[in-house]
């Protein structure tokens, strides 16, 4: 018997069959985890973001359009959540760095955003982390996920024409960073 499609499973969830959502998680969780991990750069946050992505997806299933691609929709959620996680870390770092605000806040431990990895790999990770947000997302989606520019443009709602120069530029920057830091 053929496996049900994502859209059929979505319909079952909408009809009250929660188990169908577990099947959707089983199908997509590894990809979602790795997108998050490449974007935020560590296992702990990626683990949390993977969970949050599915919680948000489940709670927002009413907004999902039946003509849409469920996987790309999940990508959009995990990208949004990951970017916000990065911004939240920036926010915390900014508040910690502020002389005036330091007095208002208790001491906080800095949260390590880096991957646990070898030195070379760490350079690669840092190169990715240094990319501007848009290039970082395009890089992860294209380089690691192997998505087409059409798919990426659907996730990011940007024109295909802008994506290729962004991807090439991102790769150049990562490459140069790795050479420079070697």
């Amino acid at each position, binding site marked *: 018997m053929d496996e049900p499609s994502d859209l059929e499973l979505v319909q079952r969830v909408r009809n009250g069959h*929660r188990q169908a959502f577990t099947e959707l*998680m089983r199908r997509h*969780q*590894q990809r979602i*985890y*790795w997108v998050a*991990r490449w974007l935020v750069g560590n*296992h702990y946050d990626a683990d949390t973001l*993977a*969970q*949050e992505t*599915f*919680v*948000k997806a*489940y*709670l*927002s299933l009413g*907004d*999902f*359009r039946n003509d849409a691609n469920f996987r790309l929709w999940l990508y*959009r959620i995990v*990208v*949004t*959540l990951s*970017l*916000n996680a990065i911004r*939240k870390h*920036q*926010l915390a770092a*900014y*508040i910690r760095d*502020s002389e*005036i*605000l330091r007095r*208002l*806040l208790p001491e*906080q431990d800095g949260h390590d955003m880096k*991957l*646990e*990895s070898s030195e*070379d*790999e760490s350079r*690669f*990770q840092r190169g990715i982390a240094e990319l501007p*947000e*848009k290039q970082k*997302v395009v890089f992860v989606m294209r*380089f*690691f996920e192997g998505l087409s520019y059409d798919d990426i443009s659907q996730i*990011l*709602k*940007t024109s295909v024409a802008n994506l*290729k*120069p962004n*991807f*090439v530029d991102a*790769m*150049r920057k990562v*490459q140069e960073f*790795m050479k420079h830091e070697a």
Partner: protein
Amino acid sequence: MKRSRERPDIEREEQEITETLRAVTAGYGKNPEPNSPYWDDLIVRTNKRLDEATSARAISVSWAARVALPGIVSIIFFFVGLHYYIPERSNEPNPISAIVADLSEEVQDSLMDELVRAQVAAYDADRYDEIFEIPEDEILSYLLTTEGEGEMFEALSEAEASELLSSMHRTIQRLEEKP
């Protein structure tokens, strides 16, 4: 003409750099690769969070009605502030960060969740096109028009909501006018 010459160049460059980078980075990011029990456990933990999220929803709505809007506004303000102040590393105190700093980490997390939820909803509704920009007034106006009476803004009168929106716009304008 220029475009037709550039296109093959960028395609060739894409192919070349991709191959080089793939050769250099083969196997990166897979160590430690989460194992099979991890993925099973992730499903169990996510299902648990789903149970909590669905059962706690009614309670969180009333809590959000009290604090979420000011929180969201302050976080939106923060991002506006971040955009304008961080690049210059100005010594001027940022009032927006002060508002955010006053919140506990727990509240910041909850507010950020609300903001993300609003972003995803607004994005899905094609209310804004650029995922990489925080659509300050778009998010707020989206929330006000789509969720006003039903959910988190039920505690606010229309006048109060309008006043907050005006205040936000005024502040953004002030920041934009700042040299």
